[in-house]
């Protein structure tokens, strides 16, 4: 498996300063597959993607993408890798000072020397792929949340990446846009044959489009499996996630070091 894996994490630990976010993560994502990484808010999902794209480096362990160590790359090698990588940011991250057309054209213009007419055709093809041809003159401020996400998707696939990273593509969308995005992502990854990693907390929609799922909680991988295995899983982690239960192995409360009774001055009453 390791010879054919496009992305591999070996004993990866990461902390922001003192605060440990990921602990000893091992995972492997085969070429051409679609993998979801699920976890609650703040569980370190975005951080995981940032490790893959080399925006942050692990304190320990190895992150290997396409056979190369990301954590050891020079900035030139990193940029080389990123040219074959597309990322859909959680809120789209469209360039607010550029029109829809210029946003989608941005990576094409930066990385190729194609003539204007060719750039134009490519942009229209990408916009058609996300079903938004005709919006090219609009500015990002004029788009709805669902539309910006789709434009951002068109921008991310502009150079036909070999690896797509999706950061919570379903968050904050109405059910119709959500269905549209889910369908699009599935269609695009099938058509382009890209390796895809999606981090999300939306179990229902992701189980329908991915090949494999990892569950992350408290900085560790607590469960994994194919969608069918996940649906049938007896793991309390998976169960809590799939059925959206408030109580279970994942706790809602932030781990405080003092008790509430102490904090509000009632500690002595119990002593």
């Amino acid at each position, binding site marked *: 498996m390791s010879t054919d894996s496009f992305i591999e994490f070996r004993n990866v630990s990461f902390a922001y300063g003192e605060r440990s976010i990921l602990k000893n993560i091992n995972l492997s994502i085969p070429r051409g597959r679609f993998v979801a990484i699920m976890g609650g808010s703040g569980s370190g999902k975005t951080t995981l993607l940032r490790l893959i794209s080399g925006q942050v480096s692990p304190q320990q362990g190895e992150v290997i993408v396409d056979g190369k160590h990301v954590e050891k790359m020079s900035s030139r090698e990193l940029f080389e890798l*990123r040219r074959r990588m597309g990322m859909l940011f*959680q809120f789209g*991250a469209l360039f607010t000072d550029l029109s829809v057309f210029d946003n989608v054209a941005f990576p094409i213009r*930066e990385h190729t020397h194609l003539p204007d007419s060719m750039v134009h055709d490519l942009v229209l093809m990408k916009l058609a792929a996300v079903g938004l041809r005709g919006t090219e003159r609009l500015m990002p401020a004029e788009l709805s949340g669902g539309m910006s996400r789709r434009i951002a998707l068109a921008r991310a696939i502009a150079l036909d990446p070999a690896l797509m990273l999706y950061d919570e593509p379903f968050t904050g969308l109405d059910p119709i846009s959500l269905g549209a995005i889910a369908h699009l992502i599935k269609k695009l990854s099938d058509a382009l044959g890209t390796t895809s990693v999606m981090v999300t907390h939306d179990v229902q929609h992701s189980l329908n489009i991915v090949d494999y799922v990892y569950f992350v909680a408290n900085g560790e991988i607590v469960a994994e499996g194919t969608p069918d295995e996940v649906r049938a899983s007896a793991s309390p982690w998976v169960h809590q996630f799939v059925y959206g239960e408030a109580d279970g192995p994942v706790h809602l409360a932030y781990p405080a070091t003092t008790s509430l009774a102490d904090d509000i001055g009632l500690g002595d009453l119990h002593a």
Partner: protein
Amino acid sequence: MLETLLSPLRKLGHWVIEAIWRLGMISRFFVAILMNSGQSLLRFHLVIREMYFSGVLSLIIIVVSGLFVGMVLGLQGYTTLVRFGSADALGALVALSLLRELGPVLAALLFASRAGSAMTAEIGLMKATEQLDAMSVMAVNPVARVVAPRFWAGVLSMPILAALFNVMGIIGGYAVGVLMIGLDSGSYWSQMQANVDLHVDVVNGLIKSLFFGMAVTLIAVYEGFDATPTAAGVSAATTRTVVTSALVILALDFVLTAFMF
């Protein structure tokens, strides 16, 4: 007791270290901008576009302020000069005050509060909304693509705006001195022509504004790039741009004046 004595000292020390640290960061950022400027120069339309934004943003405020400053100079200059019987020298007084000092300094202060703050807010918001991250994940260096063009646009706009400020000020002085008070138009211009030296006054003034442009824009882009990526962080950075720019402009003006005149 010892604590109350030491605490201000400690604060002072902390403040000094912090200031020096920031100065170091800004210097390193400056070097990074210079090293990543190749693209801005090759694709000069990027710079032109930013010049259009920062220049046009500041145009109205520069024109109007320049006119008023010139009018005030006309009034004040006249009441002072007339006491010495040399009201004819008004043209020279207005032009020299503007070219050597007021034009570069006031234009830079206005530029900092209008275009500089806008630049900080824009870059800060791009950071807060992950646009800078998106860019670098697209293998495009944000310092080369976002920061450098804005920096050069500011550096190039500043002397042009200062020159415009000077022209408007001289027109304002003319309006008050000649049209309102009734001084001789010929002597307003000829006194100016006789007393203004191209190198000493005009060129030195423009050099000043070039330095101010560099300082203001560097501060503006640095604060934006360094802003805490939240709404509160961006607004604090914007304020810092205006305050720091004002202090740096005035301090730099003293140093430059001491060297030049």
